[in-house]
């Protein structure tokens, strides 16, 4: 177990390092710099700014400086938000994204369970078809369209929920649904397939033959085994939802971190882009590790080696 953990952590750190390096290189070769303006800055002004942020140094030296910073826990200054550094910005925005992401994921999990169950367990062709149809519908609906429809209907027409002004309950519901809808659909589908497969296996038939009540068969035996494929996708899904979605944050005016994957690129705010990428990859690595550990809980047959 300990060896497994150490191995996975080392592997995770290696992934992090490569991701940082790749992003660093990609950013430097992308045309346009952080201080390019419509009104071009006089050369001496530009020189002072570049000196302040060490942008006049060779790339390798900047790279070394950045890595050293990370090791010391310093993600650097933001080139755009001059009063704050990247750590401040992430500390301000990540909790919001995380909260919304966790809400959306909970929403997806809570609602996919009955749908998946209903599809697989009722042995009703139409219920099954209906659930698959619903799931496909959910996967096919781009979140910007869903967001627009929800705002148009529930916020503008009915006035039930608010769009924007984050911080009150009524402004949480629509973004939660928008963010969680695709995951909900995907998870339902996955659960259904897994359940169907498990239900056709021998040990279920044995359980049924032994006269176990159907509800027990379903919940005690089938569901537990069907969670494995769900768990597998949960890692990346968790990372994606928790670090924020640009479209959802933009459309619903949510002060989260997901926006920076786009806006910080538009501003060429290198340290901020690196910072949010770092957070994303760290969350992903950790979530995957957690999922691997959970495997052994759900299914004792799987050994963490």
């Amino acid at each position, binding site marked *: 177990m300990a060896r497994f953990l150490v191995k996975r952590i080392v592997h995770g750190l290696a992934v992090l390092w490569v991701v940082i390096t790749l992003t660093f290189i990609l950013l430097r070769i992308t*045309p346009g710099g952080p201080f390019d303006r419509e009104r071009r800055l006089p050369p001496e002004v530009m020189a002072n700014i570049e000196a302040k942020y060490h942008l006049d140094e060779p790339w390798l030296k900047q790279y070394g400086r950045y890595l050293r910073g990370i090791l010391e826990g310093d993600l650097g200054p933001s080139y755009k938000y001059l009063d704050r550094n990247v750590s401040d910005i992430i500390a301000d925005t990540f909790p919001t994204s995380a909260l919304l992401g966790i809400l959306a994921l909970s929403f997806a999990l809570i609602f996919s369970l009955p749908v998946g169950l209903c599809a697989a367990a009722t042995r009703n062709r139409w219920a099954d078809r209906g659930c698959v149809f619903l799931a496909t519908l959910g996967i096919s609906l*781009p979140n910007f369209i869903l967001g627009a429809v929800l705002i148009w209907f529930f916020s503008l027409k009915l006035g039930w929920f608010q769009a924007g002004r984050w911080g009150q309950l009524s402004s949480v519901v629509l973004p939660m649904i928008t963010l969680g809808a695709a995951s909900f659909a995907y998870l339902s589908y996955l659960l259904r397939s897994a359940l169907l497969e498990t239900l056709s296996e021998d040990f279920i038939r044995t359980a049924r033959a032994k006269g176990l009540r159907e509800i027990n068969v379903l919940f005690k035996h089938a569901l537990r085994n069907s969670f494995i494929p769900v768990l597998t996708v949960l890692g*990346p899904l968790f990372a994606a939802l928790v670090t924020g979605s640009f*479209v959802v944050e933009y459309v619903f005016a949510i002060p989260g971190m997901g926006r920076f994957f*786009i806006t910080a690129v538009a501003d060429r705010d290198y340290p901020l882009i690196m910072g949010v990428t770092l957070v994303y*990859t760290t969350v992903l690595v950790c979530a995957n590790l957690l999922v691997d550990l959970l495997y052994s809980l759900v299914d004792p047959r799987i050994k963490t080696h």
Partner: protein
Amino acid sequence: MRMAQRFSARWQGNPLLLGSLAFILIVTLGALLAPLLSPYAPGGFDEKRILENPGWDHWLGTDELGRDLLTRILYGARVSMVVGFGTALIALLIGTIYGSISGYAGGALDNLLMRIVDIFYGLPDLLIFILLSLLLGRNIAGILIALALVTWVRFARITRGQVLQAKELIYVDGAKAIGASHVRIILRHILPNILAPILVTLTFSVPAAILAESTLSFIGLGINDPYSAWGTSWGTLAQDGWRAMRTYPHIIFFPALAIFLTILAFNFLGNGLRDILDPKAR
């Protein structure tokens, strides 16, 4: 042969599959024949017909420059279709080759190649996609390459898994014993066996690419040149419409519907194909 039989047998029982296929064909034909189907040009500027509601002259209404929306959607289908199929095919090519090599070679090479795939999974998709599209330029080729570079890993993983399974099968050993070359083994013995899951993945990759392109367009980084053969992508049209949602719902509704229905059709097709080709992995 068996595959073909399975196909025709399942075909009839699935109206959704047939409907989806028909819809995709219609969209494809519409994209190809757009200049013949529509009396209007995709570009232009008609001061007197700005923002008309759907009606007889303009079935789906007109946009902010008085252009026929239906025509723009037809031309826009070209972008979506080319991006969808193009990306999926490029990703398929890179992914299967990569995955086959990795799975077939096994050992240290396999390990290394899969670590690289892990890294690709560790990158935030949208960020990489945007950086690449900035680097490669705002044109069809740039978007295709950027998208393909993000999606190929999916094919690589699946192919590798399938190759590993197939490798265990006895007939590969048999082929080896006869002294067949590696390439021949991969091409003749392994690839045909993994065709089904790859075809299914391919079908699902097309809508994923269309979705990614339209999201990028919605953010404002899409393809737009009304007069060119490429027209304006659906995502760009939807973005124009979103801004006027309250007063002129038709200019977001129809492009959004086009995106949604097309993606839906591909997903249904994928579902159907999976049921037919790979009944175990539902």
